[in-house]
C-alpha cells in the first residue's frame, strides 16, 4: 500500500507545475497554431472560420513578410554580434582589478535593467532630428553641418535602432562572460606565461576555449530574445519610416494590433519555425552539457 502511494506521490508533486505550464504555455501555443489556419479578423467577426492554408499562402506572397524577415536577420546578426563584441570587451575590462571596479560593474548593468519601452523613448529623443542630443553633439564637434533626421530616413533609421539594441544588450554579455572569466583557473595563464605565450595567444588559446559553452549559450539565448524583441523598435519608430525598421516581430505586433489575429498567428508560426533552428541547437547544447556533467 505504501509502495503504491509513493509511486503516485512524485506525480502529484509535479502536477501543479505541469498544469500551470500546460495552461499558460501549451494551450496558447496550440490556440495560435489553430488560429493560423483560420480567417480570424476581429474586425470581421462574422467571417471567422477555418481557411486551411490560405494565410500561409498569403504570407509567402506578402512582400512585407520577406522584407521583415530580411530585416530580422540583419537586426539579429548585427545586433547580437555587436553586443557580443562590446560585451566581451567590457567583460575583459571588468575582470581587471582597478579602483572602483564594483561601482563600474554596477553602473554597467543599467542598460540591461532599464525597461525596453523606456529605452525606446529615451533613444527616440536622443536621435531626434530637431532637438536630439546626438545631433547637438555632432554639430558641436563639427562632424556634421546640418542636423540628421536619424529616425526619419531609412538609411539611418535601421542602424539607429540596431545601435539602441546593442546598447541595451552589452551588459548581458558582459556579466555572463565575466562570470565565465572568473571561473578560468589562474594556473592556466601561469602555465602559459611559463611557456612564453603572449597576450593574444593566451586570449585565443585559453580564454576563448574556456568560455566556449558560455558564449554558445548566451549568444543563442540572445538571438532568440532579440529576434522576438518588439518594445525597443516599436517605441523608437513603430516599424517606420516606410517599413524600414519593421522586423518580423514588429510586423506581427502591428498585425495583431490591427486585430487580424489569424494572419498575425501565421506570421508568428513562421517566426517560430525560423527561431526553432536556433532553439533546437540551444537545447541540444544544453542537454549535452548536462550529460557531460553527469
Amino acid at each position: 500500500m505504501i509502495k503504491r502511494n509513493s509511486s503516485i506521490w512524485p506525480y502529484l508533486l509535479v502536477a501543479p507545475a505541469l498544469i500551470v505550464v500546460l495552461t499558460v504555455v501549451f494551450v496558447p501555443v496550440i490556440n495560435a497554431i489553430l488560429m493560423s489556419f483560420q480567417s480570424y479578423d476581429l474586425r470581421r467577426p462574422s467571417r471567422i472560420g477555418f481557411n486551411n492554408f490560405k494565410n500561409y499562402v498569403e504570407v509567402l506572397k506578402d512582400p512585407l513578410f520577406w522584407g521583415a524577415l530580411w530585416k530580422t536577420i540583419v537586426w539579429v546578426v548585427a545586433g547580437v554580434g555587436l553586443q557580443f563584441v562590446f560585451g566581451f570587451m567590457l567583460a575583459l575590462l571588468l575582470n581587471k582589478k582597478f579602483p572602483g571596479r564594483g561601482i563600474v560593474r554596477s553602473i554597467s548593468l543599467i542598460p540591461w535593467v532599464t525597461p525596453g519601452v523606456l529605452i525606446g523613448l529615451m533613444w527616440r529623443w536622443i536621435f531626434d532630428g530637431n532637438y536630439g542630443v546626438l545631433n547637438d553633439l555632432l554639430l558641436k564637434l563639427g562632424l556634421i553641418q546640418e542636423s540628421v533626421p536619424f529616425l526619419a530616413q531609412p538609411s539611418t533609421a535601421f542602424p539607429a535602432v540596431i545601435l539602441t539594441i546593442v546598447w541595451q544588450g552589452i551588459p548581458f554579455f558582459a556579466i555572463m562572460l565575466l562570470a565565465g572569466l572568473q571561473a578560468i583557473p589562474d594556473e592556466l595563464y601561469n602555465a602559459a606565461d611559463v611557456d612564453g605565450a603572449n597576450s593574444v595567444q593566451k586570449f585565443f588559446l585559453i580564454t576563448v576555449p574556456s568560455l566556449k559553452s558560455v558564449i554558445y549559450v548566451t549568444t543563442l539565448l540572445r538571438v532568440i530574445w532579440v529576434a522576438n524583441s518588439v518594445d525597443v523598435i516599436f517605441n523608437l519608430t513603430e516599424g517606420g519610416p516606410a517599413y524600414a525598421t519593421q522586423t518580423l516581430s514588429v510586423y506581427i505586433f502591428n498585425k495583431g494590433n490591427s486585430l487580424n489575429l489569424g494572419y498575425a498567428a501565421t506570421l508568428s508560426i513562421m517566426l517560430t519555425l525560423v527561431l526553432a533552428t536556433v532553439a533546437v541547437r540551444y537545447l541540444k547544447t544544453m542537454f549535452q552539457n548536462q550529460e557531460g556533467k553527469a
Partner: protein
Amino acid sequence: MMKRIMMAALAMAMVFAFTVSAADKVTVTHWYWADNPKYSATMQQMAADFNATNGKGITVVAQEYPWDGGAYSQTLFTAVMGGGGPDTSSFKLTSTPLFTANNLLVNLDGYLNSWKDKSLIEASLYDTMRQASGTKSVYVMPWNTQVLYVYYRPSLMKKAGIDVPKTYAEFLEAAKKLTMDTNGDGKVDVYGFGMRGAKGGQEPWGSFIWARGGNFEKMDSPQAIQGMQDYVDLFKNGYAPPTAPMDGFNEIIANFKSGKTAMTVHHIGSAVGMMETFGDDVGAFPFPGGVGKWTSMGDTENVMLKSAKNKDAAFEWLAYLATGKGQETWCTVTGNVPVSKTVKELPFFQNNRFMKVSIEGAPWAGILPILDTTTDWINNIWPNTVSSALLGKISAAEAMKKLQAGLWD
C-alpha cells in the same frame, strides 16, 4: 437571552443599512484620454462635480488612458473583449464598425427617445452617428468636434512679405516663401509647413487630395494623385522639416512652438498652448480650397458598453457630458466645438477667434470613410505608404494605389 436577541437585531440592522446604502450608490467607470495634464485635471474635476451634484447616488470613476495616436481604441477593444473595460468611454467614430460588429455597444435609441435634451443636439449629428454604425440606430453619444485648420505666425508671414492664403495655390506658395533663413547663416531655420508624416497625418493630408479635386472614394484618380504629388513636393523641395516622415502630433506642435515651422495643421485643442507661447503672434485660417475643399472633422464621442452594470446611471453621465455642465466645462477648457446648441451660444464660444475659424471651416469638414479597414489604414498603411512616397521609394501614383487598395479592398 434578551441581550443576544438585541445584539442579533442590531447586527441585522447594520447589515440591512449597509446593503441599502450600497444599493443606492452606483459606480460608473469611465475611460477617457487627455491631450495634456490640464485636460486630465479637468476631466477629474468634471467627474467630481457630477458625483456631487447628480443627486442620484451615482459615482463616476474617471480613468485616463493614453490616446497614443489612436491605439486607445484598440486598448479599449481588447479590454472589453477580454471581459474587462469600463462602463462608458470616450470614443472615436472610426471605431464604431469594430465595436458594433462585435456587439459591444449599447443601442442608445431608447434612452435618446425619452431624453428631454435630445433636441439640444443637431439632428444631423445623430445621422452621422447612425451612418457610422451602418444601422438605423445610434450607438454613439455626440460630445464635441474639432475642425482642423491652419495655424500660422503673422510675424513670419510679414517677414516673408505675404498675406494669409485664400486659395490652395496661394497656400502652396506660402509654404515655399515661409521657408526661410532668418539668421543669415546660409541654412534654412524656418520651414513653411509643419508636415505630419506619422500616424494621424492623414487628416491634414486629406485637404491636399480634395483641393486638387480628389476624394477618398477613388484615391487613385489623377486629381487625388496630383494632391499627393503636392504633398510629396512640399517635402522634397525642403518646405517641410526633414523629420516630417516620422513627425507626429508632439513633433508638429513642438516644431511650430519652437519657431521651426511657420504653418501647421491642427485643431482648436492646441489653441490655448499656442497663445501661451506666442500671445498675439499666432493666427489661424481655414485650409484653403482649390478645385475641391475638405478639412478633417475630428470628433470625440462617448459610448456605453454592453457590459455596463447600471445602464441608467451610465446614460446620466453621458447626458451630463453631452448637454449638461460637463459639456460647457470640457469645451471651455479644451476649446473644442460644443455639440450642445445652448453651450455654443455662450459668449466664450462666440468671441473666440480660433472657434470662429473652426466654425468657418465646419461646412466642408468631414471624416474618413468609416470601414472595418479604417483603423489599420490609419495606424499602419497610411504612415508607411506616405513615408515611402516622401522618401522617394515609390511614386505618388503608386502610393495612392496602395492607399486605395488598403482602405477599400
